[in-house]
């Protein structure tokens, strides 16, 4: 076995070559999750709906939260609108948490791909991402329908969502490669990742807008990698604002760097996978 190339060209070639395999695995992962359950694929619709109901109830009725905090025109009154705003942020965070929480055990749970056959292991994080993207699409569909029912209209900027998503996906892949490779050697990561993700969720502007924070904390919130995608997705999906291109550019550059480093780390450490699994 030769050492594995870290070049992006190798990655691109592998992704193209294994595209059918990735799609098959992703479909299997996304749909197969509900295999044997009575409602089947309906769960992918029901789960986000139920979560949305619970969060809306807790935050708007129990905690009596208000969306707003200064930015003009963002003050909302109705619970329905609160739900839509909350949901837009949650969708983005769920994509992240679904991929990242599975990453540390990704290689470990596919031990036979490591030991028994020559498998393009680098596609495994992409498979998780594709499967999570399926759930994201379902959720976005629910969101748009809910928005249309509650608010009465869907902003045309919603079509920009893929542009917002693209750098996030690249970023998620980078984190996934890093965690997947490291998780093989440091099993503790699998245990702690859940706590970290929960912490990150409450630190991200999912349940509050960044503008509601005191000025001195805002810089720190923007260091959170989820802040930009969550805010931006709300802009295009709910508020009808276009993309802030300068921020988008910075975020994309960082995401690509993270992805390349993660991929490099994965390729460099994978030679040892078979020795410790």
């Amino acid at each position: 076995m030769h050492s594995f190339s870290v070049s992006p060209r190798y990655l691109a070639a592998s992704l193209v070559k294994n595209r059918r395999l990735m799609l098959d695995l992703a479909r299997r992962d996304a749909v197969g999750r509900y295999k044997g359950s009575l409602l089947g694929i309906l769960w992918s619709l029901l789960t986000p709906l139920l979560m949305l109901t619970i969060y809306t109830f807790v935050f708007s009725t129990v905690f009596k939260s208000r969306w707003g905090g200064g930015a003009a025109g963002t003050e909302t009154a109705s619970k329905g609108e609160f739900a839509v705003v909350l949901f837009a942020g949650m969708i983005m965070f769920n994509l992240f948490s679904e991929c990242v929480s599975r990453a540390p055990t990704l290689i470990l749970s596919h031990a036979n791909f490591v030991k028994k056959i020559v498998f393009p292991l680098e596609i495994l994080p992409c498979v998780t991402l594709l499967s999570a993207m399926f759930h994201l699409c379902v959720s976005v569909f629910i969101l748009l329908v809910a928005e249309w029912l509650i608010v009465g209209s869907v902003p045309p900027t919603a079509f920009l969502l893929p542009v917002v998503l693209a750098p996030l996906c690249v970023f998620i892949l980078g984190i996934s490669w890093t965690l997947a490779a490291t998780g093989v050697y440091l099993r503790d990561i699998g245990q702690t990742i859940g706590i970290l993700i929960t912490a990150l969720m409450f630190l991200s502007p999912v349940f509050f807008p960044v503008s509601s924070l005191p000025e001195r904390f805002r810089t720190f919130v923007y260091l959170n990698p989820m802040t930009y995608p969550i805010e931006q997705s709300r802009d295009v999906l709910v508020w009808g604002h276009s993309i802030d291109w300068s921020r988008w550019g910075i975020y994309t550059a960082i995401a690509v760097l993270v992805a390349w480093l993660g991929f490099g780390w994965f390729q460099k450490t994978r030679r040892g996978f078979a020795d410790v699994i």
Partner: protein
Amino acid sequence: MSSDIAIRAASLTKGFESYEQPSDRLKRSVLGLLGTLAPLPPLRRALFKRAQDCVRTFWALKGVDFEIARGETVGIIGRNGSGKSTLLQIVCGTLAPTGGEVETRGRIAALLELGSGFDVEYTGRENIYMNGQLHGLSRDQIDARLEQIIEFADIGHFIDQPVKTYSSGMFVRLAFAVIAHVDADILVIDEALAVGDAFFTQKCMRFLRRFQQTGTVLFVSHDSSAVRSLCSRVIWLDRGVIRETGEARHVCTSYFEAFYRQQQGEATSWASAEDLGESGSDIKAPAGLTRQPAQAQTADQRQRFIENAAGPGVTLTALDVDPHSLPTQRDTPLIESVELISEQGSPVSWVVGGERVLLRIRAKRPESGSLPVFAFFVKDRLGQPLFGDDTSLTSTGDNAALREAPAVEAEFVFDMPILPPGDYAFTALVLTEAAHVAGTIAVQDCVHDALIVKSESTSVTTGLVGAPMSNIALFVRDEVEQA
């Protein structure tokens, strides 16, 4: 690498490093990396030493060199822990060598362990697609071969069940079926044929023998007869180094000699070397025991024929059919039934050897209207033909009637030889002697594994065949005979 070489390994080493914790593996890599980056030699040495302390190494391969030419079938033998499986895994690329390198040419398909690479949650059909894609087939190619693969695996409706519900036999059937259809250039097989029933083993052997004609096979087995019958060359691995390499029979013999010597050193019991399959020929009959040669009660019927009928100018050549080049597809099924019957007239499914049996083959008349010739042969579990015969020297006396009869039945009566325990398969054939030109025969129909017979013999302990004993007796003698 020359284009004639399929696999080349150069000073291959593999150290298995065991770590107290998985994190030590990472620690060693990081310390090693720091070591190479460290500016001062003493610091570098200290870091490397710390890195080495994290690990205990077992050397499974200690410098292995070999080249395997394209089209060669090479067996690897050696005791448990001699590095055979490690070597195969490195050749396949699932394991990284510690030192040295291995180069391969062409598509490799491997059957390393049971159901390698199957996802047990997926159904057999889905696994075919996944495995096929991993072996470089496109989806369309798999679509085109799916039927063949399913037919080869022959696991019925289980093909749509999750693989976790499979028995180990079904597992290996499916795995073998897939790798048999991925157009591999190199086939790597590790002890996989030990599972699976007689019918399937026969099928695999047929495939392997056909594959051998074009592809390269690397084959690991503890079964010396399998190795010798399949491989042209054998590599004997002993504790991570190549002890000997060369012609199969030769290397196997010296391997067993060495094995024996060691066994005898450990214990004098021959029984402990049971699994060697053969040898022990130098056990001497106890002195003072004389045996009457058994009276020959039967003789080959051909002797009678040759003695009585063969006039001058008649050449008696039994048909020369190459058992390995028989068709596997039955284009025009002629053979209607094949049965093996005991003297009492009941069907025979197991034998101990020595009993008289009757093999009856019934077939429709070939379309060509030429004289049909029936033949059979018996193969061992590796597909090696053991014995057989045909009706080319037999006639009813009325060839015209034979040519026109709608169906013909052939009977072979013979004494079953004593065979080592195991499964034996009968292949039945209908041939025609094309236009009575000697030597040109055409296979009209061929049924592989028409019958499977189990040998329950207990009397063959060390040899390949046993001789039917008419009488074994002991006599008490009062005197010592003077020489």
